[in-house]
């Protein structure tokens, strides 16, 4: 299989602004082209838009607004992991030879219809994600004897790391007591345990090996891809304290990249809620079942940004269609040693974990210098 590289990226700050989806898409794409004036738009064969927004024909619209006439133009929606699914589609177009250069732009408004999966009637009247997150939290805490205070460190860590991310929604740091004292949504979930829907956009440009080397001094290669869907409905999850789709997607991605999890230097994991971070770390194999919180606590105590350096979804905000792309850009910056105050040491191999709907589906990417 031919190599596929990431050669450029753009983003906008994540906010609560009430902007049109077309405008949000345009802004991060424009940021990409402004930062990379050497890119010839005529070379772009495909434009993919990642969003849950209900507006139609967004990819041709974005193409027209940015002066691109691609062969391939369409949207991709898969709730919260639309972004990495779009990157996988771009990878597939390039590696199959259908395209040499693909632009992927993800965008979402703060009021995205993707926040609630209306189809999932097994959830009864409890369709909002806070309910599955509460069930996960209760189950995980009970199984591994974790207190609310211990779990709160996820939010404390990720808000702290987000403070070093100029594009993050959160600008504040919090203590464990702040998290515990934040609004009680359920017995097992506080407001500060949650990522917040927001308005945001992120763009990424992928290309063949030959074009990547010509257009970038520091391309980052996608060397591993793993995806798994176990169901669509939350109640079909066989475990409430681990993520089966994540385990399987992570295994596939590592196998494809010929690496093992101990070789991953930096990772973005899908912390939609506090409990998701230890569950993801354990399911990916970074640590053993029940040891995720120990790992997170150690990282926090040593000011190590290895996991969720940009602040995760909790600190950065969660514009659904842009999230997976924003996560990927963070790992690209880490591998290019350009993450400034968030930079981790010796970042050669990175991982992105992006999931949807209570981990019923997951996408994992492995990226390398």
């Amino acid at each position, binding site marked *: 299989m031919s190599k596929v590289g990431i050669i450029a990226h753009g983003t906008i700050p994540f906010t609560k602004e009430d902007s049109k989806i077309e405008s949000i898409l345009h802004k991060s794409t424009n940021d990409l082209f402004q930062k990379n004036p050497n890119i010839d738009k005529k070379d772009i064969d495909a434009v993919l838009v990642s969003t849950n927004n209900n507006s139609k024909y967004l990819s041709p619209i974005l193409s027209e607004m940015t002066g691109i006439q691609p062969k391939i133009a369409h949207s991709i929606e898969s709730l919260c992991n639309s972004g990495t699914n779009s990157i996988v589609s771009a990878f597939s177009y390039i590696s199959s030879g259908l395209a040499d250069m693909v632009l992927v732009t993800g965008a979402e408004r703060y009021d995205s219809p993707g926040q609630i999966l209306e189809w999932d009637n097994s959830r*009864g009247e409890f369709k909002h994600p806070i309910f599955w997150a509460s*069930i996960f939290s209760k189950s995980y805490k009970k199984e591994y004897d974790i207190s609310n205070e211990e779990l709160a460190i996820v939010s404390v860590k990720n808000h702290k790391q987000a403070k070093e991310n100029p594009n993050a929604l959160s600008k504040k740091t919090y203590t464990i007591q702040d998290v515990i004292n934040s609004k009680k949504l359920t017995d097992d979930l506080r407001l500060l345990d949650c990522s917040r829907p927001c308005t945001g956009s992120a763009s990424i440009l992928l290309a063949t090996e030959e074009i990547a080397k010509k257009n970038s001094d520091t391309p980052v290669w996608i060397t591993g891809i793993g995806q798994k869907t176990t169901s669509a409905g939350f109640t079909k999850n066989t475990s409430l304290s681990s993520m089966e789709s994540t385990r399987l997607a992570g295994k596939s991605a590592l196998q494809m990249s010929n690496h093992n999890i101990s070789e991953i230097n930096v990772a973005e994991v899908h912390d939609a809620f506090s409990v998701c971070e230890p569950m993801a770390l354990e399911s990916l194999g970074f640590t053993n079942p029940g040891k995720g919180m120990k790992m997170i606590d150690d990282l926090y105590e040593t000011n190590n940004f290895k996991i969720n350096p940009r602040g995760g979804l909790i600190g950065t905000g969660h514009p659904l269609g842009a999230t997976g792309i924003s996560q990927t850009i963070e790992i690209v910056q880490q591998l290019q040693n350009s993450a400034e105050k968030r930079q981790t040491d010796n970042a050669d191999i990175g991982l992105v974990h992006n999931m949807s709907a209570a981990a019923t589906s997951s996408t994992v990417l492995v990226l390398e210098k």
Partner: protein
Amino acid sequence: MSFESELSKGKFCIPECLTCKKIVWPPSEFCDYCNGGISLKEGDFEGKIIEFSRQNENYFCLVEFYNSIRIMVKMTKIPKKDQRVKISKCGISDGSYFFNAI
């Protein structure tokens, strides 16, 4: 007679494949295993609480029936894990299913 038409009358039925007898969940027109048609079993079904939490005065519980159907139900009394419960009220409101259990 569909699952939803019965649910809208306040009846919780179990969808079962006419051909292979597999319980089909979520309710569907066809079996996800053998693609056969579906019938509805009526009854006073008993489920088991798998997990629960609480929002304000109400508990929301993940309840399992026949080792295969799992739904989120509302309870007002303090639940216990593994407690056996029955659907006391159900229906469709604003397009969404709702289930209460005792």
